[in-house]
């Protein structure tokens, strides 16, 4: 491309103005708040931050958050891949409607999600009564957290895998079948390797979302320290009780995790792009 704006030459004045506005906006809205909270966190020294972080409630909430997110991500990778497969490879009545509804968890406010799950599985509902009678607690317990996380992150893996499956050449699969390979073998040897980057991308997005999820989890899990209190709920509780210091340590861990996952996602995307060509 011989465009003067892309190659060489100095940027024109309007371009510089736009660039300054763009950088200024991100600086003010994203960088400055992160700098402010980070400065506050390390303001009284790193050892103080560490002390805040190793409080039993804080540590527990972080461990619980990562564990719940991990369980969710494993389940979602499997169901998400299966859903994407069914949507791309099969034809069935009502398919386009279901395909559109897959995005519903992204559109519905998280507090509404939480409320729906509480009334569906809570002690007053028929399902809740049935489950309690059989010794299964969902609401105000860990299965409820996983359920809420599964709901809010459902579209990630599906939407990451779908386009890759759609574009995939089926020649290889057919060749493998012609050569006598079993179907599951074809899936694991031919299909899975080519959609794995997409699955991982969706899983990483889902995991990142799950670490920070608040609205649905606070409704479903309640706010029971050392039992169902996940990290974002812990932070909220500390802020509510005017204990900003307590909230800072866990906030910094969540922020750092977001950074790392974002970085991994970028690396993964570049890697996928290089292998596409």
């Amino acid at each position, binding site marked *: 491309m011989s465009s003067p704006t892309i190659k060489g030459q100095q940027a024109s004045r309007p371009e510089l103005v736009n660039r300054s506005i763009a950088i200024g906006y991100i600086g003010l809205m994203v960088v*400055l708040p992160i700098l402010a909270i980070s400065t506050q966190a390390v303001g009284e020294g790193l050892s103080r931050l560490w002390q805040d972080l190793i409080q039993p409630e804080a540590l527990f909430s972080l461990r619980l958050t990562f564990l719940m997110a991990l369980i969710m991500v494993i389940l979602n990778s499997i169901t998400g891949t299966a859903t994407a497969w069914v949507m791309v490879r099969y034809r069935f009545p009502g398919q386009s409607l279901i395909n559109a509804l897959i*995005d519903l968890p992204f559109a519905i406010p998280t*507090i509404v999600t939480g409320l729906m799950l509480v009334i569906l599985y809570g002690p007053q509902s028929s399902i809740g009564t049935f489950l309690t009678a059989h010794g299964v607690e969902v609401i105000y317990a860990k299965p409820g957290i996983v359920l809420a996380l599964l709901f809010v992150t459902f579209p990630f893996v599906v939407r990451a895998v779908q386009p890759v499956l759609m574009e995939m050449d089926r020649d290889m699969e057919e060749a493998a079948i012609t050569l006598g390979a079993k179907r599951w073998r074809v899936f694991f040897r031919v299909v899975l390797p080519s959609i794995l980057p997409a699955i991982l991308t969706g899983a990483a997005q889902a995991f990142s979302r799950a670490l920070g999820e608040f609205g649905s989890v606070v409704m479903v899990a309640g706010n029971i320290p050392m039992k169902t209190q996940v990290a974002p709920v812990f932070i909220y509780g500390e802020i509510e009780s005017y204990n900003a210091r307590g909230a800072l340590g866990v906030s910094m861990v969540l922020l750092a995790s977001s950074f790392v996952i974002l970085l991994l996602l970028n690396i993964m995307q570049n890697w996928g792009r290089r292998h596409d060509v």
Partner: protein
Amino acid sequence: MMFEKAMTEGLRPKSLPSAAGQSLRMFKQDGVWGKRLLLGAVLIWFGFLVLLPVGEIVLDALSDGVIPFLTALHTPAARHAFWLTLWITIVSVLINTFFGLILALVLAQQKFRGKTFLNGLVDLPLAVSPVVAGFMFIVLFGQQGWLGRWFEQGGIQIVFAVPGMVLATIFVSLPFVVREVVPVLMECGLEQEEAARTLGASRWQTFWRITLPSIRWGLAYGVTLTTARSLGEFGAVLVVSGSIIGRTQTATLHIHQEFNDFHFQGAFSASLVLAAVSFLLLIIMELVKKHVGNGQTLVR
């Protein structure tokens, strides 16, 4: 890829095609039950996980009929909450559309040092927990905060007031317009703009006549996503607002409050309204999707 094609199509012996066809047909036949099983499992899982809870909220909100449903929405607190949500959403959408467009233009059409970094920063609000997002704004705009101190002197309260809630909402919905418009701009290239400029069109004319029409569906999709996120934001707004009844409650905070006060009808009614609006936005997204290429730029 070429090699395999050649192998299966050009180079194979004459006896093979029928054998291949047969095994393929067999593959399809013995796949029927496996197919049905997988399809059934996926549909049941989706129904149980997503559709069942959504159905439940419809039933519960309307379980006592339409009148209690409407009455619960007509209370001053509910009406105030929905108005506030509407205003915050409008402001957030306007600001993020304006700056989002500029960001998209800069990221898609310019090259400069640190662009990759800027690009990464745009995604950050999606990765940050809403609670942490709200907390960041409390720290920045609180009484002792870098900017809060300054506003304090001017007698303007940001945190625990509507301006803080607007800022938090803008933050969490910031990436959508940028993310949807950038790929469309990249695909369009710069040829048409350059042609228009060469023919003597001004920058404004080029933007309104060439750039905007070619990105309009991507932009529409981004705006819809921004709207959905702004309407439904809870965690960040809760932290920033301090949840003062009546004065600083949005619709999502109102639902939370009503539920905690055991006013279940109020919580259900407001939830159903928000769910219905989300559903409407989803339909709009589906309609818009059809116009944006093959819909693949949208799913990321």
